[in-house]
């Protein structure tokens, strides 16, 4: 018993207790009065403000009419989800599975319509959209590149250990350092690529001033740091595939691509799914890079949800801060649990 208690007690105090406290705070209006707090319970007002009220532009984005493209995307996404629901209901149906999936479908539908009404209609989206961009686009890019590099390094090449060590380095650099280093890189007047920028006539262009450039700029920094993580794990996974499988396929006449596709990849899928899940979980928490590199700007273009909550806290609006944090928690949990149940578990069982 002595073994497990310290961990349980610490988690209860520093994780479960604050979680409940935070829930209560998210439902309250909190005022600082002379060193003590004045708490007033306001039910869902904080969430209302974020989702439908004056903070809507900040959290969700600006809604100002859907464009034709927006409608097409929205209907396509709705159609896709309806098809998914029907397929699930027809093939295998359990009450628990259905209820669980309702969350997944709901989130997909909501995010889909949100993107259709903002991004695809040419309006700005809020911190939710930005966070999802960092998570899904960022992790996708990181996974593909990390896996690709791991695949290359698992080939019979010279200097393997050199590449291995070099590719691992960014993981050890502090994110703050990454932020500043990439700010220097991106400087179009004093940075190392300034001559190149001037040559193509973008000498006075600023990454931090254009919303999309700034988002990509942060995503590149984040990828630079995290690709090594995927690389290291996937390389180890690729190398732990028994040599016999590969050799058997070679004797059977498979080409390197066929061996990867038919033999190696199915072997490493469980690891791939797990590593991606870990990465997604961590990516939802992104805050240091946007804060260092652009301070959330221009406007709110690069502000992640954590940063949003942090700014709300700075303005001493604890209720709003907790509400945003809780919305982040909701999105994270639904995404990660869906991914875990629908992808990881299935891969591990298969």
């Amino acid at each position: 018993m002595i073994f497990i208690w310290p961990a349980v007690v610490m988690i209860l105090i520093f994780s479960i207790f604050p979680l409940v406290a935070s829930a209560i705070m998210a439902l309250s209006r909190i005022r600082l009065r002379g060193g003590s707090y004045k708490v007033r319970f306001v039910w869902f007002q904080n969430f209302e403000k974020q989702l439908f009220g004056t903070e809507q532009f900040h959290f969700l984005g600006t809604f100002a009419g859907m464009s034709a493209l927006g409608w097409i995307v929205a209907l396509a996404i709705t159609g896709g989800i309806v098809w998914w629901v029907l397929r699930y209901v027809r093939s295998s149906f359990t009450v628990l599975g259905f209820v669980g999936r309702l969350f997944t479908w709901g989130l997909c539908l909501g995010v889909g319509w949100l993107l259709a009404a903002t991004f695809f209609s040419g309006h700005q989206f809020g911190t939710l959209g930005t966070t999802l961009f960092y998570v899904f686009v960022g992790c996708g890019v990181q996974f593909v590149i990390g896996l690709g590099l791991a695949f290359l390094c698992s080939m019979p090449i010279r200097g393997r250990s050199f590449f291995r060590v070099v590719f691992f380095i960014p993981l050890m650099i502090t994110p703050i350092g990454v932020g500043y280093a990439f700010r220097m890189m991106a400087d179009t007047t004093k940075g190392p690529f300034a001559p190149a920028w001037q040559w193509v006539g973008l000498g006075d262009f600023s990454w931090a001033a254009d919303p999309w450039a700034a988002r990509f700029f942060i995503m590149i920094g984040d990828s630079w740091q995290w690709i090594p993580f995927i690389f290291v794990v996937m390389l180890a996974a690729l190398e732990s595939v028994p040599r016999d499988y590969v050799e058997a396929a070679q004797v059977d006449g498979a080409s390197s691509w066929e061996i990867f596709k038919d033999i190696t990849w199915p072997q490493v899928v469980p690891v791939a799914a797990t590593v991606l899940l870990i990465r997604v979980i961590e990516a939802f928490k992104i805050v240091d890079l946007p804060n260092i590199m652009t301070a959330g700007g221009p406007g709110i273009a690069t502000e992640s949800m954590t940063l949003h909550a942090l700014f709300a806290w700075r303005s001493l609006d604890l209720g709003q801060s907790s509400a945003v944090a809780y919305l982040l928690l909701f999105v994270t949990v639904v995404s990660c649990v869906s991914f875990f149940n629908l992808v990881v578990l299935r891969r591990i069982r298969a």
Partner: protein
Amino acid sequence: MTLMQRLFEPRSIRTMAPGTKVLVYSVLLFWTAFVLFPIYWVLITSFKTAVDVNGGPVYLPFIDFQPSLHAWKELFVFDYKDTLRAYMNSLIIALSSTAASVLIGSMAAYALARFEYRPKFGVVLMFVLMMIAVFVAVGKYGVDWRLSTAVGVAIFYFLARALGRHFSASLGNGDILFWMISQRILAPIVVVVPIYMMFQQVRLLDTHIAVILTYTVINLPIVIWLMYDFFRSIPYDLEESAQLDGATRLGVFFDIVLPLSRTGLAATTLLVMILSWNEYLLALFLSTSKAQTMPILVAAMNAGERGILWWSMSVVIIVMIIPVIVLAIILQRYISKGLLLGAVKG
């Protein structure tokens, strides 16, 4: 043979076709450059003077510009106090919290891997209800938090003793493990404000202990997750034979199990260490001045009136990276092995 075949068909199993070779090496070399260049740039910037930085890019020391130690001197000779303190803070916090979470986490992981726990579902529910009751008492009716916590814990304890055995539904080790690991999904921003208020109440804000405790808990899930798989892979007979020889449970754990799991411990330690060393958000809340850590110090250098002093910034970044690299070199052969094990079985 067609040209494509000649370029991309390998001659033998251990060699690559010339075309593939060119492709593979160019990708690898490109990525090497992509990885190393920002680091190189930071490194040379730390030896540049203001003129070298502001007058447009210069690339090669001794050729493009004359390296100068002024930024290093500035930091270490003239203005070392703040940096040194933050550095010491970071070291103390990272080391202690890593040690604590590796120790506590491995113990929990070991317990989950070896003993069977069956907490009653009803008791867990009771605990949650009690916690909410305490909150309501403190928040709504203004009862003193110490009093209400003590009363709540006491009531819970007696109720659990009295009613515990009447509940039939119970949870297993798997549920406990999942519960612990799933804490990692929790974004720190969700819990940091209450933690901040908690430490404020007990007047521990801006102390080492506050940051250490918080980091320990934040990293527990990782330790438990990685080490659980490790302990599962250690054969049980060794421990049984040690027990037959008369060792206690704790003795077995420290003498047999921990030494056997060096690989896993090393990987876990390194990972947790890096995470604590680089942590930003929690430190931002919990350490304002006295306990300020390096990431906060570096981030604050942003706010100078003269704009960012890139040369000093580079020096600080390099100084911050060094311990991690040293640690990584010491532990490097365990890293990928340890990480993989967790990922495969997780």
